[in-house]
């Protein structure tokens, strides 16, 4: 298995890359020596965890060697030492993590499986995508979200080297997709948004053809996938329904267990049961340390399966963030009904609380952060009913889109 971190100096085993089990998840990690392990959590939090083999690092732990100090200094994570999490110290988190880790420089670096640098594609005067910059980290599901026509498929075709950028470039596995096209495609599985197959072949023939092109002799995985999705590979493709064609597309994309899956609206045409099956497949894929780039125009889908999400709108990235962080950022709604309406401005100076609607004696608040100060403040009045809704990402996105259109207008 390829490591997320790898020493760049050939033959150096000072920082050993690998994976470590955590529950059912294998976490990419670097062994620092003396039993200390620095690993990246693969849950949505994207935390960098410093672990000790006894699964507990004392909060007053001091880096044992000058090397560790230099390393930790390089990632700028000293300040978080007071934050023990039972099985290790969370020494950093957030979306800038991979950049921070990369600053370790010569020692180790996070392998970005996909990296776009100023990626631009213009069709005549029409913009396909403009100045995209993002990195997809190994082992994550990267959700690429945007309405139809926003540039999702253009981005994907640039990644596949089907179309060539007007400016900028995209690297997969650290290699230019144009220059090392064939080698890159060897490690890639692709499911196009509008999957077109050879009508006159059977599913089995198509799978065998593509397996031959990949030098893949073992079709057990293909047959296992077909069985899992209840697909009969012996039928001619021209007789298959849209959903079944999609399944053939899934089988050919996953059958060689590629390191990176590029999936353009993969669940379209699948019934809900098969969608769940597909989400399970994605989870298994990332738990092997493999990576998924998935485009979608359906928010709940991305919310369910993606670790991080990039939002594209009219060819530009408007946001790249972890789903968890988005959720945290999303304000919750609290609806309180009073016996008598409190005076206007009664809650004006509460931190993180905003009145967004007032209907008679009912007030709707948008709440960021802790609910306690609001509850204490509400208690000064007679409350008839209290209702709170969890943050809804849909609101975040609608707000995001509204905000950007206002800016654009």
């Amino acid at each position: 298995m390829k490591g997320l971190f790898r020493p760049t100096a050939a033959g150096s085993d000072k920082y050993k890359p690998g994976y470590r089990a955590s529950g059912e998840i294998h976490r990419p990690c670097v062994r620092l020596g003396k039993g200390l392990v620095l690993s990246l959590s693969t849950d949505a939090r994207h935390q960098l965890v410093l672990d000790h083999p006894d699964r507990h690092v004392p909060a007053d732990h001091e880096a044992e060697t000058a090397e560790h100090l230099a390393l930790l200094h390089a990632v700028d994570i000293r300040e978080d030492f007071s934050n023990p999490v039972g099985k290790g110290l969370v020494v950093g988190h957030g979306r800038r993590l991979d950049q921070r880790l990369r600053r370790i420089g010569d020692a180790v670096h996070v392998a970005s499986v996909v990296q776009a640098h100023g990626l631009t594609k213009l069709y005549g005067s029409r913009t396909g995508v403009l100045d995209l910059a993002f990195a997809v980290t190994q082992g994550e599901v990267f959700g690429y979200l945007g309405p139809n026509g926003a540039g999702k498929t253009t981005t994907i075709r640039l990644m596949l080297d089907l179309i060539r950028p007007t400016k900028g470039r995209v690297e997969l596995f650290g290699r230019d997709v144009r220059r090392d096209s064939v080698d890159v495609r060897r490690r890639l599985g692709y499911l196009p948004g509008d999957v077109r197959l050879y009508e006159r072949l059977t599913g089995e023939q198509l799978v065998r053809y593509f397996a031959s092109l990949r030098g893949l002799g073992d079709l057990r995985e293909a047959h296992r996938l077909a069985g899992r999705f209840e697909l009969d590979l012996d039928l001619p493709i021209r007789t298959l329904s849209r959903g079944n064609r999609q399944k053939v597309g899934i089988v050919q994309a996953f059958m060689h267990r590629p390191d990176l899956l590029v999936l353009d609206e993969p669940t379209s045409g699948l019934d809900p049961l098969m969608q769940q099956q597909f989400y399970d497949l994605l989870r298994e894929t990332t738990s092997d340390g493999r990576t998924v780039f998935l485009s979608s125009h359906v928010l709940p889908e991305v919310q369910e399966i993606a670790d991080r999400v990039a939002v594209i709108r009219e060819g530009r990235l408007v946001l790249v963030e972890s789903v968890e962080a988005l959720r945290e950022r999303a304000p919750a709604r609290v609806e309180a009904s009073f016996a008598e309406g409190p005076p206007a401005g009664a809650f004006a100076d509460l931190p993180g609380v905003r009145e967004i609607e007032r209907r008679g004696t009912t007030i709707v608040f948008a709440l960021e952060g802790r609910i306690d100060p609001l509850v204490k403040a509400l208690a000064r009045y007679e409350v008839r009913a209290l209702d709170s809704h969890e943050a809804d990402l849909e609101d975040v996105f609608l707000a995001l889109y509204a905000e950007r259109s206002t800016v654009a207008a």
Partner: protein
Amino acid sequence: MLRNVFLKSLHDVRRAVLWWSIGLVSYVALIVGMWPTVRDNPAIAKLHETYPEELQAFISFGGAFDFGTPAGYLGAELFSLMVPLLLLVAAIGAGARALAGEEERGTLELLLANPVSRTRLALEKLAALSAEVAALAAVLFVALVVGCAAAGMDVSTSGLASATFGALLLALANGSIAFALGAATGHGALAIGLSAAAAVAAYLVNGLAPLVDAINSIRWLSPFYHYVAGDPLREGLSLPHAAVLVAIGVVAVAVGVAAFDRRDVGVSK
């Protein structure tokens, strides 16, 4: 059978090759079957010799126009027009379909997700279309040898081989042009239209050359001229003329493959 792009492409055309072969054999049988009638009625040959010079220029195949000899008869009835026409239709269709067909059907996008370089894909497709047309030429040759023997026509086997091979080279030169146009543009219909128009123009230039001085000076540009010149049925293959046909194909393929390697593919325009 589906081990690589070359074999897959042949697999796709196996039925078409069968039907084409049946058609070619039937046509050869018809023409050869009429030979005894022509031979036994000198009036028919005489009638053809009364054709205006302009028409004779079009239906003669190398050498002199002599409808009364087996070689002259086959030249006029088969090799001057029908054989090259049939092989050209097959080659231009196959050339245009090779890459543009996959692109228009949308299968190129998935095919190119596999670790096969565009150049390799194009060359395997080219090899498959060449094999397809060569198979048709081989069927034609065998039908002619068998037919001529059965009808007692005194035509040398090497002459038949040379003429058929020349027709194959002509078809492949035009097929390569169609292939290159399809590779460079992704539009099959455009590739067929332009290369068919070029073939018709080449045919007219060669036919009109003896009659019009201005055209005669550009005759060397016409692939048809290089196919007909040297009287292959009687004199065997002319290597310089054959080399020109090969060169046309090679240049077309080189340009087409280079363009295919550089452009955006699979984008609906």
